């Protein structure tokens, strides 16, 4: 339990586990902002539940969720400016959502239909929105981290007061890309915020198998900048820490590494069964630290929330989810020949040829099937 002691020593926390607030650290968000945050977190949780169900029913092929990590994802993104970039890992729908990526955008992506911004080409939840400055999700672990550093360097060259926020997991800190990106950002004082969602697991591999260090945040020191350990299940602590890191980045103070200490309550993805590698007791322990419960208790203490409002919001969100799903499921798929688009800005001759060949084949196959 060495790691746990080290964590308790220096963890940044605004909300206690019963929702009591530390007034000296309170970022003093408006009531409206607080409720916006809560709504986004609850929506994210409910979407996860619904999507896991859809996958089991065979209506979608794959899903990867954020259950338990909503505070870290949404709180951080909420602290950013409109022009800043989010470089997501693969659990960051909530971060895109608070920047204006709609539920409809998300469901179109998951179904890979004709209105999906990624045109049916990416796995579910691997979102992208250039308009909202949300970079395309990169599946190979850690490979997105250098992109954030490059975006930050570009902002600096353009003398724009912008910064980049990159999400990645504890597992990603074992990849070379993590270390060299941190080094690069330190050397160039890049306006980049590194946010490690330390959810304690990389599929079946526990955090202890990724590093022998007592924490992840400590690694920033070796690269010449500050690392902060934050209670990742405390949305206000995440918000306040990210906000500060962005202010520092924008004013030329360089990068920050934030370790959001949290937990993946669900399976890694719909392809995973966590019973193979972790005990239910551990999960139960973390369920008690659920970021939604803690935030709700805080809101209740502030008299902003009560059971009736909770019930009503859940009903509303549920309806929104179901009606959006119903509409999205009617949207046709993208046509097969669309796979040849966007390989290049302009389609070269060999792809036009392959496309025409595909169209001829599909036509022929249709005739064969019709003649039966």
């Amino acid at each position: 339990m060495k790691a746990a002691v080290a964590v308790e020593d220096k963890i940044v926390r605004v909300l206690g586990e019963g929702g009591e607030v530390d007034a000296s650290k309170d970022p003093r968000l408006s009531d409206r902002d607080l409720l916006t945050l809560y709504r986004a977190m609850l929506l994210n949780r409910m979407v996860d539940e619904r999507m896991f169900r859809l996958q089991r029913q065979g209506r979608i092929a794959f899903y990867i969720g954020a259950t338990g990590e909503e505070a870290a994802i949404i709180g951080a993104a909420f602290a950013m400016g409109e022009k800043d970039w989010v470089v997501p890992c693969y659990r960051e729908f909530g971060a895109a959502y608070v920047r204006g990526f709609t539920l409809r955008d998300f469901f179109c992506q998951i179904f890979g239909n004709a209105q999906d911004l990624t045109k049916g080409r990416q796995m579910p939840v691997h979102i992208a929105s250039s308009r909202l400055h949300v970079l395309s999700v990169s599946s190979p672990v850690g490979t997105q981290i250098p992109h954030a550093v490059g975006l930050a360097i570009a902002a600096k060259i353009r003398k724009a007061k912008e910064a980049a926020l990159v999400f990645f997991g504890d597992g990603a800190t074992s990849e070379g890309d993590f270390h060299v990106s941190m080094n690069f950002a330190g050397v160039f004082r890049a306006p980049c915020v590194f946010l490690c969602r330390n959810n304690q697991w990389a599929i079946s591999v526990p955090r202890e198998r990724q590093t022998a260090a007592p924490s992840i945040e400590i690694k920033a020191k070796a690269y010449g900048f500050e690392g902060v350990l934050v209670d990742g299940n405390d949305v206000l602590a995440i918000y306040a820490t990210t906000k500060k890191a962005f202010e520092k980045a924008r004013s030329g103070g360089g990068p920050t590494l934030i370790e959001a200490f949290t937990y993946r309550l669900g399976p890694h993805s719909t392809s995973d069964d966590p019973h193979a590698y972790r005990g239910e007791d551990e999960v139960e322990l973390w369920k008690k630290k659920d970021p939604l419960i803690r935030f709700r208790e805080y809101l209740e203490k502030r008299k902003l929330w009560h059971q009736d409002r909770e019930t009503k919001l859940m009903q509303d969100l549920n309806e929104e989810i179901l009606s959006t799903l119903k509409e999205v499921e009617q949207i046709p798929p993208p046509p097969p020949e669309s796979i040849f688009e966007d390989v290049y800005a302009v389609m070269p001759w060999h792809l036009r040829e392959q496309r025409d060949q595909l169209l001829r084949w599909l036509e022929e196959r249709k005739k064969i099937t019709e003649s039966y």
Partner: protein
Amino acid sequence: MTYREAIRAGLREALRSDPRVFLMGEDVGRYGGAYACSRGLLEEFGPERVRDTPLSESTFVGAGIGAALGGMRPIVEVMTVNFSLLALDQVVNNAATLRHMSGGQFSIPLAVRMATGGGRQLAAQHSHSLEGWYAHIPGIKVLTPATVADAKGMLLAALQDPDPVFIFEHAMLYPMEGELDEDAGAADISQARVRRQGNDVTLITFGGSLPKTLEAAEQLASLEIEAEVVDARVLRPLDISTFLTSVAKTHRVVIVDEAWRTGSFAAEISAQIMEQGFDHLDAPVARICAAEVPMPYAKHLEEAALPQVGIIVKTVQGL
């Protein structure tokens, strides 16, 4: 027995019979491997020999090289070929060159296994077939087991080899059922195999495209075209003579390769047949490859991008 179980049987046999053998990679231990190939082995052999590593492809391949230099017989599992690209420097600049650069002083008896190929809706960063790229590299051997027997036999052969051997397991093959002679040891890794006899056309393929090609051959048989199906099995060093023997009989060749057409391994096979078997040919060599696009996710899009049985049949008919 399934292809997956055959790999597991091979791993178990290797771990039991040779104390120098150990397995490492991410999720290979407690989880039993991303494709369940090593399930139960941690329990049987312990964490020294079935080792869950930090998430670092470059390091587990590089450390595999080091362990091989240090007298072990490591088996490194990389989850998929796409992720193996993070370790490519260790493969191309190190594993493949060390023996030669050192004037023959160092040997790297390393076996690296990974999943390859598409068909499971995992999109552009998990679905490519890059074994043809690996086959470009002198100094390593490249195996593409396409049958249950080869799944086990090729692994055992790789462990007997003094050089680095890369094994590409097509992910669609893991659940495939087939015959396995439990006592069969290491497989031959020098020759291609004829998987179906025929006189009218030679279909050359490997890995995950073998079942599709055999199915196409069955459909062709009902159209009274007897196709000979040749499984290349080993991409480097390549056994061209088995292809030539078949071509001398059939005079027509179609190559099925799930990789992108330009610069594909199919292009290499085609070139060698042209160089050495030109006089046997009655028609230009034809290739069936994937569309030259990053693999899309949606099922119908992925199907449009990948070689399909129907296309093989149609191509043969059009020769």
